[in-house]
């Protein structure tokens, strides 16, 4: 790890100015991802700007019914918040499916969105990786492929996004509030995260110096009946092989509205627009759920290590929607 300067500005604008002025500066919040990467030598900031105290720790209801989550709200507090548990269970469940109690206590809302991939080649400096070192190649494509992407990947990168929370926020269509050198702006999910293309070094559309200040949850009555289902190699404390965030409203056996996003399949949380379209207005049956999932995965490209993700995603989405529809009728 390189030596670094550490500062803790009082105002967000000062923090943004400080980071924007130094290409080797980075924000630090909970640190659970960045410190890990600094130890591995895959992040080497020479200046850390601590934003944990200057960002909001509050979850507040806006006058228009939306919920504003401060970027410094710890994952555990957000998951336990009564408003989230009541109206956005998919978000609580996604948070609680991630990491461990200790990590959720430290990790922040903003930082969780910006988690970098767990690809084992990205994490190992001795390996080629286009995301870490553009132009060196992708060791993952022909390598340990269990966690590789099946949707939206490129010949340059097959990494997946590791966040559970971001999958739920993507299904909900949350908005990310960003303060940058040129002022504030709002990014609608899933627009924050990008697909790798030929610039896999960029995880998101954020520019250097941009600081996530809050996440706004839309007023979405549909979300009161929502769920997050995560399939992983052990019962807890493991990254997703496949995960599904879904919200469903069924009226008289017909899908009136639905939201679906997948985790574990792509470089970004994957909003399943195609599946949603197939489902809306159709019958709420297991077969319809499966057909919709298959439609979403029609373009999946797999290798020997991750081919299982297609049937796993189909089954997991079908099971999640089945449970949500059963819950509704019961």
């Amino acid at each position, binding site marked *: *790890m390189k*030596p*670094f*300067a*550490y500062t*803790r500005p009082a105002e967000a604008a000062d923090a943004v100015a400080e980071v924007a002025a130094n290409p080797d500066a980075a924000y*630090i919040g*909970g*640190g*659970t991802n960045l*410190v*890990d990467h*600094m*130890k*591995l030598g895959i992040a080497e900031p020479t200046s*850390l700007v*601590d934003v*944990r105290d200057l960002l909001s720790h509050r979850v507040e209801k806006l006058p228009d019914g939306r919920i504003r989550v401060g970027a410094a709200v710890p994952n*555990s507090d957000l*998951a*336990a918040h009564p408003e989230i*548990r*009541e109206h956005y*269970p998919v978000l*609580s*469940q996604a948070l*609680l*499916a991630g*990491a*461990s*109690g*200790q*990590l959720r*206590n*430290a990790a922040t809302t903003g930082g969780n969105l910006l988690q970098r991939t767990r690809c084992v080649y990205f994490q190992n400096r001795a390996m080629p990786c286009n995301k870490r070192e553009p132009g060196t190649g992708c060791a993952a494509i022909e390598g340990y492929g269990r966690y590789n992407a099946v949707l939206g990947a490129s010949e340059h990168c097959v990494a997946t996004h590791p966040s559970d929370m971001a999958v739920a926020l993507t299904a909900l269509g949350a908005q990310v509030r960003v303060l940058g050198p040129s002022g504030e702006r709002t990014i609608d999910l899933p627009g924050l995260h990008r697909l790798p293309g030929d610039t896999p070094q960029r995880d998101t559309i954020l520019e250097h110096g941009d600081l996530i200040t809050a996440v706004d949850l839309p007023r979405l009555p549909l979300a009161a009946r929502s769920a997050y289902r995560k399939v992983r190699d052990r*019962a*807890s*404390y493991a990254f997703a092989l496949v995960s599904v965030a879904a919200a469903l409203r069924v009226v008289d056996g017909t899908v009136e509205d639905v939201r679906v996003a997948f985790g574990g399949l792509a470089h970004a949380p994957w909003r399943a627009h195609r599946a949603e379209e197939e489902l809306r207005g159709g019958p709420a049956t297991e077969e319809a759920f499966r057909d919709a999932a298959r439609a979403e995965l029609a373009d999946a490209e797999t290798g020997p290590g991750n081919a299982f993700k297609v049937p796993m995603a189909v089954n997991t989405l079908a099971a999640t929607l089945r449970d949500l529809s059963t819950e509704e009728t019961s």
Partner: protein
Amino acid sequence: MEATITLHVDGEKRELTVDTRTTLLDALRDRLGNTSPKKGCDHGQCGSCTVLLEGRRVVSCLTFAVAHDGATVTTAAGLAGEDQLHPVARAFVDHDGFQCGYCTPGQVCSAVGMLEEAGADWPSHVTEDLRAPVTLDDAEIRERMSGNLCRCGAYVNIVAAIREASR
């Protein structure tokens, strides 16, 4: 680059100069000689370094000491008085909730923090109804303690110890 900070560790005020790169874990172990929190992975993947930071359980390996100037840190060595055992620690001894003992201080701190969380009605991954109050049954204890790996496989006894201590 160095910084001078103050930490309140196990009830004692400690002033120390750290490299900004020094994690809270290494500050405790290497600088302050408090080796109660253990280093099992150094990457937040095992929980052996769990301490209570301002009362909340965290992994001390993934945070820099310099970010915690003035903070209160409690390790397993400071949960009770010098010659006493915290009820959770006592229950770990009685139920043989450990073998090699290396993950144990982290397990004990994690359990103490976890019981607070459950008491505050925080849900977990296995909580069936997010809208109902939390009941701390065995499945809840297991899930909430899953951030603390134990390679000796003492989990059954860890759960028994925490079950007893939670009563």
